[in-house]
């Protein structure tokens, strides 16, 4: 009798479970079928470029057979994590905005498709350097470049005049200027070291000539603590310890206020800086100017990259060709590039796009040659190959530099931690590492 009752209950549970799982399986089946059936191809696109819906609607009107729907994302690391999770779960968007440093992770997770065949004619539109970021130095093409972020020095021209400092040409001059500013007004800093922005630190290391990752035959070479990076770290560590550079992270309300109140005089940032400055420090309009980054040795001319992203096609997308066609249009078509610049405040990676930038951003109306400067600086920027576990390295940066900044301790030790964490993770996962 007892067995009979239990069996009844078990059957009940089993039937209900089956009913439920049957229900959840259904929509995915229809979603898969929708793309294959006769109607227009429907694509979803995850991006955080402002006003992308407006740009996409121009495409949608001209291409009734390929309809793209934009899903606005938060951007940054969260967006990458979300895409990787969606890809792992089997329902990624067809198209995704991929930051260059995250692309290797996407490729390693088999989340993005090789679109070499579909983007053959797009290659000529881009410079060697930026194209290398989407091929990872392999034969494949994993994305179409969208924007790039060569770094330059933003500075308050009016306050430089007030404190009587020259625009620093070298990092030594920058350090000297930092001391002068502190001497003249203890409330003001020349700049701040952000322990929250590994991309910024990576860009500064690139400028110094770092090569955090490289591919050596069939093995990865990891050198996050190479000599140029250690040089950058000990330079900033020294300034923070000396107290002549502030240590508040970027993109915080506190930082916004310091920029707005004129208590931070410089920001070594990227070409997309005007967008941030105009929204976060509106009071500084017309007071900032741009110059090349200070150099490590007088007479040199180098820069690095901070940020920049591409448009990738998900490996699981049923409409790869249509998605690649859209990605190519978005990043190489003159009309699309014009819209990206105007509506999306994007600094296009394509040569054609960069040539379209003529009128200085409103925030920099005092510097009519802004884009000419930017193009000249962009030509001097050098990058490096990103590894397949950048997120591990970047997370280690935040934790290690948080601690080092708080303790005023040795920054090169933090770099060492980044290297060790990265190598340990890669070894644990099974990547082949070169010695």
């Amino acid at each position, binding site marked *: *009798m007892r067995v009979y*009752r*239990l069996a*009844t*209950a078990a059957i*009940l*549970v089993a039937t*209900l*479970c089956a009913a*439920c799982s049957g229900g959840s399986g259904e929509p995915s089946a229809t979603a898969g079928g929708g793309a294959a059936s006769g109607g227009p191809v429907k694509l979803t696109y995850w991006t955080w470029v402002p006003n992308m819906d407006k740009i996409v609607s121009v495409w949608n009107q001209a291409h009734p057979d390929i309809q793209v729907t934009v899903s606005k994302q938060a951007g940054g*690391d*969260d967006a990458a*994590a979300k895409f*990787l*999770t969606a890809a*792992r779960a089997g329902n990624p968007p067809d198209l995704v905005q991929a930051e260059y440093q995250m692309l*290797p*992770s996407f*490729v*390693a*997770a*088999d989340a993005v498709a090789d679109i070499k065949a579909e983007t053959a004619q797009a290659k000529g539109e881009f410079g060697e350097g930026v194209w290398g970021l989407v091929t*990872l130095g*392999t034969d*494949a093409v994993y994305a179409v470049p969208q924007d790039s972020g060569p770094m330059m020095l933003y500075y308050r021209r009016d306050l430089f005049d007030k404190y009587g400092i020259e625009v620093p040409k070298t990092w030594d001059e920058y350090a000297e200027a930092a001391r002068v500013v502190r001497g003249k007004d203890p409330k003001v800093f020349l700049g701040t070291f952000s*322990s*929250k922005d590994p991309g910024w630190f990576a860009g500064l290391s690139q400028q110094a000539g770092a090569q955090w990752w490289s*591919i050596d035959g*069939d*093995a*990865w070479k990891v050198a996050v603590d190479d000599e140029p990076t250690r040089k950058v770290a000990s330079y900033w560590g020294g300034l923070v310890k000396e107290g002549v550079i502030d*240590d508040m*992270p970027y*993109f*915080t*309300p*506190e930082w916004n*206020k*310091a920029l707005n109140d004129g*208590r931070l005089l410089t920001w070594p940032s990227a070409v997309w800086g005007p967008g941030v400055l105009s929204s976060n420090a509106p009071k500084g309009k017309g007071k900032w100017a741009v110059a090349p980054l200070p150099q490590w040795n007088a007479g040199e001319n180098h820069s690095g990259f901070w940020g920049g992203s591409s448009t990738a096609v998900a490996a699981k997308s049923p409409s790869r060709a249509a998605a690649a066609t859209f990605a190519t249009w978005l990043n190489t078509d003159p009309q699309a590039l014009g819209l990206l610049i105007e509506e999306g405040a994007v600094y296009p990676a394509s040569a054609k796009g960069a040539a379209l930038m003529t009128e200085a951003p409103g925030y920099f109306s005092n510097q009519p040659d802004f884009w000419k400067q930017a193009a000249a600086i962009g030509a001097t920027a050098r990058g490096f190959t990103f590894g*397949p*576990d950048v*997120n*591990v390295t970047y*997370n280690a940066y*935040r*934790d290690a*530099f*948080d*601690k080092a*900044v*708080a303790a005023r301790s040795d920054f090169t030790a933090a770099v060492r931690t980044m290297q060790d964490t990265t190598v340990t*993770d890669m070894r644990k*996962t*099974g*990547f*082949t590492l070169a010695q």
Partner: protein
Amino acid sequence: MRRPGKGAPTRRAGAVPYLFLAPAMVLFTLFMALPIGYTGYLSLRRTKVSGLGLGRGARTEVFAGLGKYAAAVGDGELWAGWLRVLGYGALVLALMLGLALVFALMLDAAHVRLARLTRISIYLPYAVPGVAATLMWGFLYLPGLSPFGDHAFLGAGVVTFSMANVAVWGGTGFNMLVLYTNLRAVPREYYEAARIDGAGELGIALRIKIPILVPAIILTTVFSVVATIQVFTEPTTLRPLTNTISSTWSPLMKVYRDAFVTGDLHSAAATSMVIAGISVVVSFGFLRIVKNHAFGEG
């Protein structure tokens, strides 16, 4: 004592309870047992990469045994996280429940003006979502923005207190309401009898109200302990504002980091199981210790 209805055949009634139980069992299976089982499954596996790890098929999932558990338990950062949470939890529990009790007793006292308004205003912070509350306090803490002057509220030694303050601010009202509701259910005759015996308001509070409240206090303590073990919102929201909160400040933050920042789902699953185990042991252990006080009178 009630007896089963006359003439109801006990034989058939035997199957009926299972029918009534079925929805609960199905929901439990779908939303508790299966996810936990899947987490357990994930925790026993790991990703294996060969060569450069690029291209198709370079990444496979293999059985890892208890390796991820060994790594989770052996990670000093997890235990350092528990220690931090222990300190934070002790602060939050003592302050929040202490204040909640005091407020409940005060509101229940005989002559209080504006009791309704006071009650609502103490409860109100609980209605503010955790992220919004933490952001609001974050702005109040930030030097340069803070109306309280240029203090390092988010500095290394102080940040735990600042975070505890957010939790106390948000949680006191709810706990006060639970205690207060319990107090309102106490027959007023008790107090009259006490007054006739010469007890003042303080005496009534200490000798009658608090002993009656013990089960409710234990209930709120268990809830608060569980919430403290799961602390995530406050440190995660404050983290971008300061360099004193690491990505593994609390155990749950470590799970989040493993799963979504460094992309190691399997480590995250193993750590989750460890945290769940500790959480169960702590809350049931606490209940066991105090069960005579809580339920002995029933």
